[in-house]
């Protein structure tokens, strides 16, 4: 399984549809303070099913939607899609390309989709079971959180219990 691309629209500081392609190897994201780098990592966490507003640096899920600027009006929904190459069939689903999408509306209602078909959060989480992807603390480290790896002893114990080596 390999990441192919991420699309954001109306998510945080990305009002316009934005596509980020991922290639083999190492990709870096650079730019000035406040330009939107960590917002991209928030988008990846969110589309994979993140439920904690604190982790997403917001008060309410609806505040993830583009809030407008002095020159642009606020938008009414946010959508993020993460596309993966599944030609090695490591994800137990019958698609060559697997696209996970998540939407949120101003009403607070949130939708998940797998390859454009609506589904539940449970379907997304089950898809990634045993792949190492997903919301445990070890495949994504947020800004300023690397020290938590040393202090998170309970999480480390849980991880050791979950996995047979």
């Amino acid at each position: 399984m390999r990441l192919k691309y991420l699309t954001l629209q109306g998510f945080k500081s990305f009002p316009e549809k934005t596509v980020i392609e991922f290639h083999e190897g190492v990709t870096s994201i650079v730019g000035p303070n406040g330009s939107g780098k960590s917002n991209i990592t928030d988008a990846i966490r969110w589309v994979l099913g993140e439920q904690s507003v604190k982790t997403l640096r917001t008060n309410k899920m609806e505040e993830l939607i583009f809030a407008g600027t002095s020159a642009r009006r606020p938008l009414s929904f946010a959508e993020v899609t993460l596309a993966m190459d599944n030609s090695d069939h490591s994800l137990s689903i019958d698609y060559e390309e697997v696209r996970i999408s998540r939407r949120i509306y101003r009403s607070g209602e949130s939708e998940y989709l797998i390859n454009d078909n609506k589904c539940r959060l449970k379907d997304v989480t089950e898809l990634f079971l045993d792949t190492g992807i997903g919301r445990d603390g070890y495949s994504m480290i947020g800004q300023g959180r690397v020290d938590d790896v040393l202090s998170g002893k309970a999480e480390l114990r849980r991880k050791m219990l979950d996995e047979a080596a």
Partner: protein
Amino acid sequence: MQSQFESSFKFINEQFNLVFQELFGGGQAELILDDSKDVLNSNIDIRVSPPGKRLQNMLALSGGERCLTAIALLFAIQKLNPSPFCVLDEVEAALDEANIFRFTDYILANAKQTQYILVTHRRGTMEACQMIYGVSMQERGVSNIISVKLEN
């Protein structure tokens, strides 16, 4: 349950020491269970010694040594059940140039099995990447992706 815990613990402990030596260019690292009779509820202690230094409690480590130790433990845990991708947001901000170099060497050596996505301000990290995306706010408050540089 207990034997499963013990085998994961042993695996991560071995990897932690290996990765630590790779990132620090020497030294030693280990995880210690303070109650080996009741492993499932035992506290996990971390003891490390950077190359040429005595075994320290974590308090006496410098900011950069602590950061690099955290990265070593993270990479060791990832070896237990490797994820196809790994997103790191400025984890190497506290490191000096020499440690940045060893950090990126490790990443490049593992880039075949794992796709790494690194948000960074550090020049040494940027230079090691195959692909660089620049994010900017030419229009105030609106992010856009401006450049893609494909390295050799």
